[in-house]
């Protein structure tokens, strides 16, 4: 009979073989799992202008930058500011010196630790005129920042106390500092990598990121694929391991791809009435109020609107906002009678005035302004080319015609041309305006009308308004800040440099397989907060 018992060395050999096979099986299962890990497919609008967090400006760039870079602070699913790379912070009693304590576990995607010096270097780069960072203005609250941006070498109010402690010195009290620091422009960038690769540093093969994801591939004008950053301090809680952002320039094309199952989350929705869209998409359609304000701007520096408040008020009163949001926009927008979205200002809902009353007041003001049906006003209304804008402006011109007898000349322009004309204030009369906030702060809107702002395309100037803004900038008490913001807004609206029409809504199609998508006022949805409903 053959002896089938194993010697000790044979047993060990067998064990090794078994464990090797097991390991190989587990590894291949793991690899298969990894290869087949489901990728989140996101529609993202136009091609991002840059993946350099200090140079990216478009909304599409900001969406991706929030995934791959992180600053001292970040946002939670509701848009509230929470600790980011800094785990905690404190400020001096005068509010001018802030000390941030960085997480010891914070690392770049290449495994190198993120230190306070990295932030000092990052801020210095953002404020270097050679970087030409579009959002550099958000960092002008740092001491010496403006001089730096103008090419000076003044010491910057950012200092590394040690590797883990960063001290920021401000020009003035800045209540929204923590929100500013959550913007991509304030993120930690890998200055060593930037120095090594120069302009090529954002390429997929070179880029080193500081956020929850890193870039795997970038196919210009097509897709950007992200993969979970294993060195992210909270990588365990990041549920989706791969994300692919698709360039989707046309809303109808994007919806078609969503319908075909090629996209899990869209950037916007195709045009149409809310009811029809609800019937088509059901609960996949997610619409929520957002921090955006659509208004007509009025040029106060030239005829016919200069020095004619009654005329500006008449034009505003003649527009029926309720009809506009019901008939023209139709996707849940709220009629606007002031600049600040109510979800931001906390203002009470405006008292409803019957149309007949408003129209009678508009006609009286029109008369007082020196016009009548026999001697009507002819006004130019400029807007940038889009189907929605055309319908909106046509509706407004009809309302002005019916209520007042105003003759409107509609001028359709390309976006860049409109921007240039608005800024020059030479040929504009009434024009399409609007603002989407970067920060959930009334100042983000009110600052547009500051006298030194290049965004102030109306020529509005008021000492009282400027003074109110100055006080508001230094006010840390939220109740007092709200009161001041409303007072500044009232001062603005009293001069009527704008005719607010409605507040924007955020609109997305979300696959039922995605959980963790929370509507928030800034419409930010970082991929790290999303997960699959069925793992």
């Amino acid at each position, binding site marked *: 009979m053959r002896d089938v018992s194993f010697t000790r060395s044979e047993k060990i050999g067998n064990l090794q073989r078994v464990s090797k096979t097991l390991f190989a099986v587990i590894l291949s299962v793991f690899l298969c799992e990894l290869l087949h890990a489901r990728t989140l497919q996101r529609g993202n609008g136009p091609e991002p*202008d840059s993946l350099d967090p200090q140079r990216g400006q478009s909304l599409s760039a900001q969406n991706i930058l929030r995934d791959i870079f992180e600053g001292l602070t970040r946002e939670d699913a509701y848009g509230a500011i929470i600790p980011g790379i800094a785990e905690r912070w404190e400020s001096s009693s005068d509010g001018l010196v802030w000390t941030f304590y960085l997480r010891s576990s914070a690392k770049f995607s290449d495994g190198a630790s993120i230190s306070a010096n990295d932030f000092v270097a990052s801020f210095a780069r953002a404020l270097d*005129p050679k970087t030409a960072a579009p959002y*550099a203005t958000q960092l002008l609250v740092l001491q010496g920042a403006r001089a730096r*941006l103008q090419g000076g070498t003044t010491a910057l109010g950012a200092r590394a106390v040690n590797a883990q402690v960063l001290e920021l010195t401000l020009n003035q009290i800045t209540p929204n500092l923590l929100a500013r620091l959550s913007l991509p422009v304030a993120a930690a960038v890998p200055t060593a990598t930037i120095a090594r690769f120069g302009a090529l540093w954002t390429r997929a093969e070179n880029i080193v990121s500081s956020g929850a994801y890193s870039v795997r591939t970038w196919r210009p004008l*097509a897709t950007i694929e992200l993969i979970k950053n294993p060195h992210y301090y909270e990588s365990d809680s990041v549920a989706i391991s791969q994300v692919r952002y698709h360039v989707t320039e046309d809303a109808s094309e994007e919806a078609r791809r969503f319908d075909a199952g*090629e996209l899990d989350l869209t950037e916007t929705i195709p045009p149409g009435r809310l009811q029809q869209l609800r019937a088509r998409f059901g609960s996949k359609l997610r619409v929520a109020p957002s921090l955006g304000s659509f208004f007509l701007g009025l040029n106060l520096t030239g005829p016919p609107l200069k020095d004619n408040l009654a005329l500006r008020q008449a034009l505003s009163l003649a527009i029926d906002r309720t009809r506009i949001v019901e008939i023209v926009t139709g996707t849940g927008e709220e009629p606007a009678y002031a600049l600040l979205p109510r979800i931001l200002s906390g203002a009470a809902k405006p008292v409803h005035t019957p149309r007949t009353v408003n129209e009678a007041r508009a006609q009286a003001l029109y008369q007082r302004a020196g016009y009548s049906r026999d001697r009507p006003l002819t006004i130019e209304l400029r807007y940038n080319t889009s189907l929605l804008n055309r319908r909106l402006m046509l509706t407004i011109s009809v309302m002005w015609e019916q209520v007042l007898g105003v003759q409107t000349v509609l001028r359709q322009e390309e976006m*860049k041309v409109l921007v240039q004309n608005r800024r020059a204030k030479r040929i504009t009369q009434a024009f399409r305006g609007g603002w989407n906030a970067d920060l959930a702060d009334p100042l983000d809107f009110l600052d547009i009308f500051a006298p030194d702002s*290049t*965004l102030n395309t109306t020529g509005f100037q008021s000492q009282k308004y400027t003074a109110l803004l100055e006080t508001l900038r230094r006010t840390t008490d939220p109740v007092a800040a709200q009161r001041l913001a409303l007072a500044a807004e009232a001062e603005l609206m009293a001069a009527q440099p704008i005719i607010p029409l409605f507040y924007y809504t955020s609109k997305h199609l979300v696959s039922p397989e995605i959980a963790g998508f929370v509507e928030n006022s800034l419409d930010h949805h970082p991929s790290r907060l999303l997960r699959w409903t069925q793992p």
Partner: protein
Amino acid sequence: MLTLVLKKLLGGVFVLLALVAICLALLRSVPGGPFDNERIASVEVQAAMAARYGTDASYTSQLRRYLSGMIKGDFGPSFQYADFNVAELLRAALPITLSLGALGLSFAWLSALPVALFAANHPGGRADIAVRALSTGLLSTPKFVTAPLLALLFASTLHWLPSAGLGEPMWKYLLLPALALALTQFGMAVRVLRGALLDAADSDALKAARARGFSAVRLQTRHLLPIALPTALAFLLPSAVAVLTGSAVVEQVYALPGLGRALVSSAFNRDYTLLLGVVVSCGIIVLVIGWLVEIALLALDPRRR
């Protein structure tokens, strides 16, 4: 022969230079600059942008700088897509547009040939009338109508092909756009080929061949086609140009990152360098196709030599 080639090359270079000079002048004269952006809030940032990209320079110095870069194959940085230079964007976009164009042209002309042969063999018959009606219908349907309809049918309804974008394997994503491009060209190709075949059928050469009693197959393949093809081939250049311009529409509808899409986005964004790069690339493509068609005509038609 050598002087002819040199003449063609010099002519081509002149055309390209003129194209760049005119294009840059047009771009500068259009209102709205590359950095007229709604959101740039500070004067310092705007000045830094203009300095970085040299848009504050005069026309002649911009043109000089652009041309000297172009000779070295450097088309400068893209104004809109800050992380790329134009040469890289073109390298990424060219293969897509070229594959799309080649596929579209092949679909159109290869499928048009048998149809045209069939129609030409039964001139005035029902089939001929049907073919002519179909080709006129296809020729007069714009691509922005056919392209979404094809996507609706084959992608959204039947789920056979992806509806837009670009992924792996690439041919899957190019099939529908190429078909959309091909449909209009098919209409044109059928008409051109049918006309050329009918003319060829009336020619003395064919009559002579027929008199010699060749079989129908031999008559068509060895005698009819060689006479008809050079006439049809002369239409390949306008057809290729139509495909190139048509791909701008199709690439938009199918979200394909080709030259057409780059052209549209660079025009809206006032991305001078990218737009010039696309124009130069399209110019080179048209010139090269023109040369190839001429060479092919010389080879096929001894009368031209």
